[in-house]
């Protein structure tokens, strides 16, 4: 059964979603099967695409909206929401 899930998470004040934190985020998102979208600053990105995630230009303290669909949607969003505030 397909489900969908949406939650918000805020980047640490001193951590922008630049190359290394974005790669950590994308690696985590890639463990899940369904589609995951991360939105910030009015832009949307495939959470499994490093280039799209970097193009969000999310700076420290930015609130991200995470939306997932598919069987593991809830687990995916839970995991990413827990990860985002811990990125460094």
């Amino acid at each position: 059964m397909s489900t969908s899930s949406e939650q918000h998470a805020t980047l640490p004040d001193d951590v922008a979603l630049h190359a290394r934190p974005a790669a950590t985020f994308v690696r985590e998102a890639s463990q899940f099967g369904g589609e995951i979208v991360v939105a910030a600053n009015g832009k949307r990105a495939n959470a499994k695409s490093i280039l799209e995630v970097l193009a969000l230009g999310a700076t420290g303290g930015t609130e991200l909206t995470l939306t997932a669909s598919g069987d593991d949607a809830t687990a995916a969003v839970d995991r990413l929401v827990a990860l985002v505030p811990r990125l460094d």
Partner: protein
Amino acid sequence: MADVTTEGGANGFVGLVLVSHSPSIAEGLAELAAQVAGPSVPIVAIGGAADGSLGTDGGKVLDALRKAAAGQGAVVLMDLGSSVLSVRAAQAELSAEELERLVIADAPLVEGTIAAAVTASTGASPQEIAAAAREARSVNKL
């Protein structure tokens, strides 16, 4: 000039082969990709002509592709011109089994390599990695 810049071999991750006219570009890019993607993805940087000048060394490219094909497989990224030609020439020398484990990515070198390295670090297949590299042609930066 070191060709292998990260741990290589049989760790289960598909590798990358980077081919540039410039050894500095190939090695610097390998260093950047390894830092972004972590140490698990084997990355081989091939740059420069046989005499060390800017250019490509067909023999070195062939050796690198052959070695990469012997492992878990690899995705090959190139800058342009003779880098592309030397990869194509090397493909003609490889066996069907070797060719099966290599995917040549038609992508911008820097952005494509970063996308490929991060995707490879998730344990993806050569086809998935090359698809991530090709996205670099269409994803805007701003």
